[in-house]
Each structure stands twice: as C-alpha cells, then as structure tokens.
C-alpha cells in the first residue's frame, strides 16, 4: 500500500490561516508537541483549535495561544493553563466548553460521518443553553452536532508508513477519534516501521484515516516525566 511518510515542515505547511485543527492528548500523554511547535513556527493564524485541554502554560497548545494564532478553542477543561483562562476572560479567544465525553462523542461522530448525536447529558445545566432541544417519545434531549476539522495532529508510539498507528497507555485518549474526524491527519510517531511490522489486530488507528506520517528523530524533554 502507499507510503505516506512526509517531512514535518511540508505536511504542516498545508495548514493555512483560518484552518480548524484537532490536536490529540490529555495532559502530556498523546500530545503531539513537535507538530504543535512546527505549527507555531510556521505561524498560521485565526485557527480553530479542538483539544481536550489547553496543556499547561509554556507547553503544547499554549505556544499557539501565546503566539496569538488561536481565534477559537473547543475544549473540555483549561483549568491548568492560567494563560488560556486569561485570554478567555479578556475575550481575546472564543472558548466553547464541552463536557469531556460529549466532546469525544462529537469528534467521533464527525469521524463516523454522522450529522450528530442525541444525548441527555447536561440537561438542566448551563451547558444546555443555546443548544437544539429535541422532544423524542415525550422525553427531552439535546442534539449535539458532529465535529470535523480540516486537520488533526496526532502523536503515536508506533506507526508504519501506510499510517497504521498505535498508542501507548493513556496516550491514546482523543487521538484515534481525531484521526477519523479530520479531512487531513498528520501523525508524528516515536517509532516508524515498515508495512507488515505491526500486528493487524493491535492497530488502534487504521492507516486509511492517516494522510501523513513522520518519525521523530528524538523526543524533546517536554514528552518526558519531569517535575514541573
């Protein structure tokens, strides 16, 4: 099958001003720090970022926030990044807060080619405000639209050059969902192997969903266990 290895700078160059970008990770594990740094270096502006959390100040998606590259952030929790909270409160970025599992489901629904999902999560809370309410068999429910994006940035532990990916431990989190939901998925990987070198049953993201794969020459310190 086709090889999809692409130099990181070339793959990221396709991300233009105004693009929507999903970024994997829950805390440090699964966050594609190198891809984010390259996106910060290249400087695309007015981005919509879809990410579980805003990392901590000084790392990951915070680089894009500090760079003023982000117009809109769709996320479930930004409590560990005071910079993100400040930008939200100052109105410098628009933030949409989504219940974590519903964020996962909306992204997955985008990846599954659905229009959306219907849920009772958030009924009677501020999160239901402004949403499309449905009455189904006499019961109230919330329509949550599917989320897709132009690009996804992913971090894999292992990949082959067709783009089959696997993730370590809790580094999986949103990565497989975002791989499906984006029109163009970019995966950095700690180890790149040839086709046939991954167990077909152990692939977490089928390469069909991945457009570009790139091996990291080394893992910068941000990926490691450090007392911050």
């Amino acid at each position, binding site marked *: 099958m086709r090889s999809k290895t692409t130099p990181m700078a070339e793959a990221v160059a396709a991300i233009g001003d105004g693009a929507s970008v999903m970024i994997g990770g829950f805390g440090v594990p699964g966050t594609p720090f190198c891809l984010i740094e390259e996106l910060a270096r290249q400087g695309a502006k007015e981005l919509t970022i879809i990410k579980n959390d805003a990392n901590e100040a000084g790392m990951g998606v915070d680089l894009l926030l500090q760079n003023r590259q982000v117009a809109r952030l769709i996320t479930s929790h930004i409590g560990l990044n005071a910079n993100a909270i400040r930008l939200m409160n100052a109105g410098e970025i628009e933030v949409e807060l989504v219940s974590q599992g519903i964020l996962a489901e909306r992204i997955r629904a985008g990846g599954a080619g659905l229009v959306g999902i219907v849920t009772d999560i958030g009924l009677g809370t501020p999160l239901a405000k402004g949403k499309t309410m449905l009455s189904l068999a006499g019961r109230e429910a919330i329509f949550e639209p599917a989320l897709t994006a132009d690009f996804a940035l992913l971090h894999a532990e292992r990949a082959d050059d*067709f783009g089959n990916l696997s993730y370590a431990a809790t580094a999986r989190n949103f990565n497989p969902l975002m791989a499906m939901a984006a029109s163009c998925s970019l995966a950095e990987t700690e180890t790149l192997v040839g086709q*046939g070198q991954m167990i077909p049953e152990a692939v977490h993201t089928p390469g069909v969903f991945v457009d570009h794969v790139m091996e990291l020459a080394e893992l910068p310190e941000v990926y490691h266990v450090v007392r911050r």
Partner: protein
Amino acid sequence: MSSGAKERMLARAARDIRPGMTVNLGIGLPTGVLGHLDAGLPICLHSENGIAGVGRQLPYAEADRNLIDAGGAYVSPVAGTSYFDSAVSFSIVRRGRLDLTLLGAFEVAMNGDLANWMIPGRFSPGPGGAIELAQKARRVGVITMHTDKSGRPKIVERCTLPLTAAGCVNRIYTDMAVCDITPEGLRLAEIAEGVDPDRLQSATGAPLLMPEGPIPTF
C-alpha cells in the same frame, strides 16, 4: 454475454483503480475486478466486515477461519493490513475515506440513481452495507451487464425499484460501454470494440450523449 466481454468489462473497470486509492469492491461482479489488478499496485482494499488491506482469496485448505471478506470469501492479509470493528469500518465509508466503490446494479438511472438491494415482494434480504457505500464513497462506479437476461436495458431514465441511493453513481461499466453521469446527462465515454453506437443506444433505456470526436474503444 460472452465471457470475453465480461472480462473486458472487468479489466476496463480495473484500469480506473489508481495507485494510492482506498477501494471497496461490492459483492458479485465487482469482486471479479480483483483478477485484473496488478498485484504490485499500491492500493488499499477495504471490506466492510472490518479489514483495510484485503489480500487474495484463499482456497478452503489454506484459509484462516477468522478471516473472511464481506462476501464470505476466505481472504489473506497483506503487509499493512489492519482489522477493526463494524463501527470503525463504516466510519471509513461515511467519512468519505473510500476513494472508490464499485457496485452491482438492478437498475441505474441517467441521473445517477442506483437500485441494487430490493425487489419488492420478491427479494428483500436487507441492505447490508450497500446504501452507505453508494451514498458516501467519493466515487461510485457501477458494474453491470448492459441488459438483463430478457434483453431489457439496465440503464434507465428513472429507476422503478426502491433506491439504494439517489444521484450517487459517477460511472457505469458494462459489457458494451463505459458511460458517465454528467450534469448534462448520460454521456458515452467509451464503447466496447465491435459494438455499434446505434445498437448501444437501442440497448440503453436513456438517451446517450456522444463524446466529441471519435468514440474511444476498450
């Protein structure tokens, strides 16, 4: 239909499968396209029961009891194969990650409507994955004999059978011709060698737009 004409039709459809494509071949005639693909062609064959990277069919003696395609044939993996559940498998389909699907047809209309899963009162085994493949693949090709066993056209002005999906078909491969569904109507793209254009039109249930210049043959 002679076996030669059928194989020529399948070979012609195979030529539209390009390197890098992800492709789903429907059960029946479309599976026959496999025999006309270069084994080294870097494509990814998807089967909706949960495989990306379907390899060649295997005889029973060599089969892995856990590895079939959606049509029930025993198949082999290739280097780079992955397996997944049915929800992920159809996510590939509905998210538009199939570059091409080739499907069979009971009827296909000049506007791209396809009917291939139900004949009311006679045949309704369920849609399987046909509707999703037809509705969501980026490009849908139909492979069918040009006429049915009674000689009636399978390409029609309007489908009479319940639809699989409306306006989904891009190209039709038959034993007599290759036709494209275009905004202007049904356009002849290529004609099988030895077939006369007038005979082709009379075997077709909808008006055929002719290509500019001489008609390419296949």
